[in-house]
């Protein structure tokens, strides 16, 4: 048989193998980066009917999260406030601000404002706000620094791996129960003597933590985890009921 394939074909399998590996790696990397919630969800910042500035309300004016999201401590669902809640103040304050026109309109007609839903948990996932905020998980852990957001955006990926990150190691996120709604809280704010007096310290601790200068997040978390007996389930049925 005559040479059907030219000489350069000898290199073709190698070239194809190299190209194949590169393409496979590239596709994997691209999927990893672009097709996971870290990319697809984080930073989503829709335009709301009323540009509610959390930074002004919380940081400047000192309002508590629970003034508006009033059921967060007692219900699975953390509510978005109704128009009446807004009008408690805005019937007096800024009552002619044109940006608030949709609120006044809703107040007049009784038709709720159609807020754009950001943190929408899929229907096959059960999430209970009360169970978390009463057990040392701050709003901050899932929603980020909302108190500094002029327009709210998604700060965390809310993927299952992200949920499990905390369910597997809650000590990295737990904080004292009076600091849940203080979104600016830092582990350094904790005074070790006061903290140990209130919550104790883990049995495994060899030194007296009350004498320490600072407590790390891990030390705080470990203490609270033991104190409150926190053992988050990683069973499928915990969230997929």
């Amino acid at each position, binding site marked *: 048989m005559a040479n059907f*394939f030219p000489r350069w074909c000898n290199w073709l399998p190698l070239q194809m193998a190299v190209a194949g590996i590169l393409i496979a790696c590239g596709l994997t990397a691209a999927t990893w980066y672009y097709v996971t919630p870290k990319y697809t969800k984080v930073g989503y910042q829709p335009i709301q009917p009323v540009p509610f500035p959390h930074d002004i309300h919380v940081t400047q004016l000192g309002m508590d999260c629970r003034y508006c999201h009033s059921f967060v401590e007692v219900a699975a669902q953390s509510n978005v406030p109704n128009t009446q809640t807004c009008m408690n103040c805005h019937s007096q304050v800024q009552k002619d601000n044109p940006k608030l026109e949709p609120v006044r309109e809703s107040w007049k007609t009784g038709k709720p404002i159609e807020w754009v839903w950001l943190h929408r948990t899929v229907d096959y996932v059960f999430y209970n706000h009360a169970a978390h905020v009463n057990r040392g998980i701050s709003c901050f852990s899932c929603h980020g620094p909302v108190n500094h957001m002029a327009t709210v955006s998604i700060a965390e990926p809310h993927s299952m*791996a992200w949920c499990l990150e905390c369910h597997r190691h809650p000590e990295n996120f737990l904080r004292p129960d009076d600091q849940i709604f203080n979104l600016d809280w830092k582990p350094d704010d904790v005074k070790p003597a006061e903290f140990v007096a209130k919550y104790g310290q883990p049995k495994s601790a060899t030194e007296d933590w009350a004498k320490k200068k600072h407590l790390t997040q891990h030390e705080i978390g470990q203490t609270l985890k033991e104190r409150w007996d926190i053992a988050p389930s990683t069973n499928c049925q915990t969230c997929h009921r």
Partner: protein
Amino acid sequence: MNAAPTDVIESEAASTAESRIKRAPLVLNKRNFSWITERISGVVEQPAPRWWWVCFSITGSIAMFGLFCLGYQISTGVGTWGLNHPVGWAWDITNFVFWIGIGHAGTLISAILYLLRQRWRTSINRSAEAMTLFAVMCAAIFPGVHVGRVWMAWYLAPVWNNYGIWPNFRSPLMWDVFAVSTYFTVSVLFWYTGLIPDLATLRDRATTKIKKFLFGVFACGWRGSNRNWRHYEMAYLLLAGLSTPLVLSVHSVVSFDFATSILPTWHTTIFPPYFVAGAIFGGFAMVLTLLIPARAIFKLHDIITPQHIDKMAKIILLTGSFVSYAYTMEFFVAWYSGNAYERFAFWNRVLGPYWWYWWTGMLFCNVLSPQLFWFRWCRRNILVVYFVCMCVNAGMWFERFIIIVGGLHRDFIPSAWGIFIPTWVDIWTFIGTLGIFTSLFLLFIRFLPMIAMSEVKIVLPEADAHAASPNGHHPVAADGRERT
């Protein structure tokens, strides 16, 4: 080996050590290299005969309807199958075990018989390996679809994901995934490696540019040089070594799906060897089911000789005896254990709602019908062989059904007892896989050499220069190894 009687006497006189029992030749009628090439390549090179189109259109339609059933099941839900409490596994897993078992004969022929230097394997190994691949494809459909949400099937693969979860390696269903995918991969490699010299033959004989190109690509530049053959034979040997444990491991792992549970009739240590024997038993029956018609249609009687059929029948008898022993042992252990649940389950197998499955499927088809193969006349009679093979094919399906549904339908609490009734989707999905299997096999015999030409040539007397020589040379090499 192929010497004339006078030569045998002469060599006997020369040396008694070399006087061997005259063996029947593996290729009859003194066919030569050229005849083998022409006959086998001819099947691929001639235009498709009319019967092929008729058969293919029938099997292809059945396959398409099977695929439609799969699509219907996926889009509607697993409720289209007759599965429900307490029978959560039924035809789907029965079919899975049935198909995966069939594959084992191909691997046994290609790997174990190769390592044991059973030269008669050369006539049947190519098509048996192809059958293995097609059977594994059919098998893979069922557990894949059985998961219910097929788009979630990738959970079975250990890949990093944003769900932060990992397959549960303690589950035997997970072991199945690895056993079957390894099996398929190694089988494909083995089959393809064996094909390379034959693809080169077809490339060299090809008349059109497209055929030259395609066969040329897949022949990987094979030139039949000494260097080519040395690498090829080493690769083939290594793959045979890799495949050999798979013959035993794959169906052992499949049996763990049952054996690691706590259900009476499933929770048995005899299951792995019992399943492996059953797989080879059913697989050889399927090899014969496919090869007997192919042999008749393509006039391959000189290559697939009565000797080959005889030997395969003996393997069916042997493995059938293993299986019969396992059946007996199950009953014995049920009695001997004194376990009321175990005893009940086996009484239920014989006298319960599925009694006739046991009496016809397991007893008649699997235990009694292979007993015919004790007789040489039966092993040499194509009709009897075909009858027994069909019995075994059906019997092995029934056996799996009895194990699976028989174990499930009588739960521990009588109030949870139930019965399984297949729906039309169940039935047609299974028939569909029969269509897929036969269609793929028809495509295979149409486009690829169904007999390993190069390997059959090696077992011809002409391939052994010394054996063919009428006087002087020894049929055994200087280092004592038999020439192959």
